[in-house]
Structures are given as structure tokens and as C-alpha cells.
């Protein structure tokens, strides 16, 4: 159980860490000051979540690694985030499309995890679900503003959605390790809320006058450490200082 839990906590923690890192790239560069604050808010929430989950992962692993050690000293093969969150920010529309698909999923995930038999996961989820409800609303509203805005914003958000769509299925994939944890009541079964996610996403896209992207081959691999080319660059930047100065305290 230790290893399966370690893996699961990494998935949850890495999702939030990588997405938090991506959003913090916007700081000082957003289209309007008010938007800068919104994105920073979401980034902060995500980094907070990741700290809790990575701490849990370290404890489950039982080798004395804490959240920072895990965040700053693993290479790509050991990261367990989904491919969606490591996608580049692109323009604001691409960033919103990524957030839209992810936060709607994460909200449903945390609602399930509030009932996890593992107290610590249930507690993290209970606190995080309030934050993620806000993230979802923010993303949904921006999808509609951009989709049903100008011709340019519509084209950009359609492109952004098209970029991200191939990463949606991975969010709902359940492998053998996860099946066991689901059976134990610790992990959530994402397949159970795929239908609800589809309904929510379709509704927002309709309001946004956007077409549901056509089905396509899913890109997967993140959950077993086979990432896109983007993650390596993201980690190089993020991990530079602790790796360049081993043993230093910051």
C-alpha cells in the first residue's frame, strides 16, 4: 500500500505543482492587472495543495524525503502529473482552455476525495474543493467571454481547446495500481464522473458558441513518467538552485 499510495499522492501533488508553476509564469505579464491577481491566486492555491500532497507522498514512501526534496530532486521519469498541466501557457486563451478542462475535473475529483478513507487525503480535499470551485468558475466564465467575444478571441480559444483536447482522456484513465486504491476506498474512481464532466464541459462550450472538438487519439503517459517535451524544460528552470547547490538550505 505504501508504494501505491506514494504513487497516488505524487500524481495529485505533481498535477498541482506543475500547473501552479505554469500559472506563475504569467505573473507581471497578464492582459490586465486584475487578471494578474486572479491567476496568481489560482497558482498559490495549487502550490499549497501540492505541498500537502507531496508531504503525504514522502511519508508514504518512508525514506525521509519531504515535499521539497520530492519537488526539486526528481527527474522527468519520476514525475506523475498528467500531460495536460505541463502544456505551455501559449496565449491567454490557451491558458484558459487548459484551466477549463483541468479545474472542472479537479473539482469533481476533490468532491470524491472528501470521502476518502484516508483521513489526510479527505482533509486536503475538503479544504481544496472550495478553492477549486472558484478556479472552475473563473475558467468557465473566461471560456464564455472568449468564445462568445470577438472573432479573434473565438478563434484563439478554439485553437487553445484544440491543443489541449488530446490530454483530456488521460485524466480519467484508471490503471491497476489505482484500481487497488479505489477498492480500498482511498482513491477516487474518475470513471464515475466522466459523464458529469462531459455534461459540464459541453454546456460551457455551448454557452461559449464553441464546437466540441472532434474525438482524437488520446495522448497519455504522464502517470508513468513518460511526459511531453515540455516537462524537462519546466523542471530545469524550477529545480536549478537546489540542484546547483546540493546541501544548501534556502
Amino acid at each position, binding site marked *: 500500500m505504501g508504494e501505491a499510495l506514494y504513487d497516488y499522492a505524487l500524481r495529485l501533488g505533481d498535477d498541482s505543482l506543475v500547473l501552479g508553476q505554469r500559472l506563475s509564469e504569467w505573473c*507581471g505579464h497578464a492582459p490586465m492587472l486584475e487578471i*494578474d*491577481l486572479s491567476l496568481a491566486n489560482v497558482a498559490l492555491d495549487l502550490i*499549497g495543495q501540492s505541498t500537502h500532497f507531496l508531504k503525504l507522498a514522502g511519508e508514504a514512501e518512508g525514506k525521509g524525503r519531504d515535499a*521539497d526534496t520530492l519537488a526539486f530532486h526528481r527527474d522527468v521519469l519520476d514525475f506523475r502529473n498528467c500531460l495536460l498541466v505541463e502544456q505551455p501557457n501559449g496565449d*491567454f486563451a490557451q491558458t484558459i482552455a487548459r484551466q477549463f478542462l483541468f479545474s472542472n475535473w479537479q473539482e469533481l475529483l476533490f468532491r470524491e476525495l472528501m470521502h476518502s478513507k484516508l483521513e489526510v487525503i479527505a482533509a486536503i480535499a475538503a479544504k481544496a474543493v472550495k478553492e477549486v470551485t472558484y478556479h472552475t468558475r473563473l475558467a468557465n466564465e473566461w471560456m464564455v467571454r472568449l468564445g462568445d467575444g470577438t472573432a479573434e478571441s473565438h478563434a*484563439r480559444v478554439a485553437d487553445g481547446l484544440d491543443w489541449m483536447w488530446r490530454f483530456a482522456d488521460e485524466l480519467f484513465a484508471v490503471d491497476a495500481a489505482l484500481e487497488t486504491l479505489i477498492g480500498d476506498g482511498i482513491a477516487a474512481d474518475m470513471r464515475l464522473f466522466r459523464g458529469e464532466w462531459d455534461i459540464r464541459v459541453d454546456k460551457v462550450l455551448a454557452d461559449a458558441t464553441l464546437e466540441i472538438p472532434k474525438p482524437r487519439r488520446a495522448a497519455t503517459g504522464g502517470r508513468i513518467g513518460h511526459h511531453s517535451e515540455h516537462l524537462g524544460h519546466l523542471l530545469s528552470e524550477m529545480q536549478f538552485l537546489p540542484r546547483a547547490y546540493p546541501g544548501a538550505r534556502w
Partner: protein
Amino acid sequence: MYTTELNDKGRKSSLAPVVAEDPALLAAFEARVSADDFIEPKDWMPEAYRKTLVRQISQHAHSEIVGMLPEGNWITRAPSLRRKAVLLAKVQDEGGHGLYLYAAAETLGTSREDMIEALHSGRAKYSTIFNYPTLTWADIGAIGWLVDGAAIMNQVPLQRASYGPYARAMVRICKEESFHQRQGYEIMMTLAAGTTEQKRMAQDALDRWWWPSLMMFGPPDDNSPNSAQSMRWRIKRETNDQIRQRFVDVTVPQADAIGLRVPDPALAWNETRESYDFGEIDWDEFYAVVRGEGPVAKERMSARVKAWTDGAWVREAASTHAAKRDVRAAAE
């Protein structure tokens, strides 16, 4: 300071009103201000007061926004999760401070768009300090410790500035500011007590940020022609040299406490004045930076202009969508 008058050397800013103002109104205004009363947005005020405030408040706002860039430069490379979160929160606070101040300035008859245009065109200034680059993680510590430390010294008395919206914005800002300075000093403490390389990083940051921090307080008093009027109007509480001296007196012991050396060979405790004597500031450098020739002035401005320009379609989409919604709502 973020609010220091940043006129090009030798050029007096023209604050004389074009139209002669009613002496009775002027006298009543001066009496209210000297009685520690607050002036609120729709109250009568001399044109020079309004103009000075628009310039000062918007300059402060611009400083907060541009200030997000040197620190924002290190968020993705912060060396621990806690440092990343704290830095992100600090930079977010700075954005928020900019918002409070733009809001206060807008009560005086200018618009966010006008102020941004003034910044991007170079007409409006922002604090000179943000034209210096952040080269290492230690710079983040130095900025929190020195730059926020300097800002706090200026901002605390402005909580009783004569203009209500400005004073209230300053109260909000002051509440949030002390965490900023503490996080910076804590970084410096950690580095100064760390590995040889970390100590070197910390000392190097202090070497580069010390003098620009002293320059933040603005030109010497004998080259600040409008100080007296601003002080009478309670939009400036002390002279540049006074606050600068206090900053040195407070900060030198903080450097001593963590074993860092202030890069000033002329620095010496003066027993008679009970204050530190310190060396001459390079005023050529100061005025060059004010003119827009700071080391990374181009980088700062182009980043801000790019964000605004690249974001135009987003702002337009939001406005267009809102208009569409209004039309639909009216039709129902």
C-alpha cells in the same frame, strides 16, 4: 521613494495654476489641511494639489506594477515550495497595491488607461529602484529587506496624508507591507548563515542594491524644490534626506547582525549626531536612471508594453461579450 519627485535634473516642475484660483477657497483649503482634516474626492482643491497628487499616486502605482517584474523573475526558480508561495503572495500583494493606488488616483479625474499610456510613453515615472536587475536569488532577499524597508519608512506617515482615498490606500498597504520586509530579511539571514557560495551571493546582492536603495529617497533636499509645498499639503511628511538618514541608521545594524558588510567605505558611526555618516551618492547615476537610462529600464518597459499590447484582444473580447449580454438582457 515610490512617491519621490522624479523631475529631470535642473527642471522645475511647473505647478503654477493657469487660471487664478479664488483666494477664499484657497485659504479655506489650506486651513482644512493644516487642521489635519481630510480632503475627499469632490471637495474643492487647488489645481496644483490635484495635479501633484495624480502624479504622486500614479507614480506609486506604476512602481508597484513595474516592481512585480524584478521579483516575478524568480518565482519559477524559487528554491523551495515555501519560498515560491511566499514570493508569489508578495508579488500578488504588489499588484494589489497598484490596484488600490490606481483606484485612488482615478478619484482625481484621471483614468487607468490614461495612466498606463503615460507610463508606456515614458511621461510618467516609476521608482528608480526597479530599473536594476535581479541576478541571483539573494537579490530577492535584498529587495524585500532594503526596498520594502525603505518603502515602509515613507508609507507609514502617509497613512495620514491629506487626501482621503490616498491615506486609506496607504493604511491597507502598510498592513500588508511588514510581511514583505520580513520575508526578505529572512532570506538574507538564511543565506548569510549558509554555504560559502550562499554567503557570497548575499554579500554580492547587498553590494549591488545598497546604493540604489539610498537613491530611492530621491534627490538631496536642496534639489527638491517642491518639498515644502508638499509637506504643507500633507502629501509628504518628511524631507528626502531625513528619511534617508533614518533608513541608514536602522539598516546598518541589521546588516551587522547577519555578518554582511555595507559597501560604503565612508560609513562611520558619528557619536555627536548619534547617527551614521555615510558616503556621497552618485547623483549622475540617479539622474541617468530617472531619465530612463537605468540598466534594465528597456526590459521593464518593453515587458509592460508587451503585456498590455498582447492583452488587447482579451480586454476587447471581455467588453464585447459584456455588451452582447446587455443587449440580450434588454431584449428579454
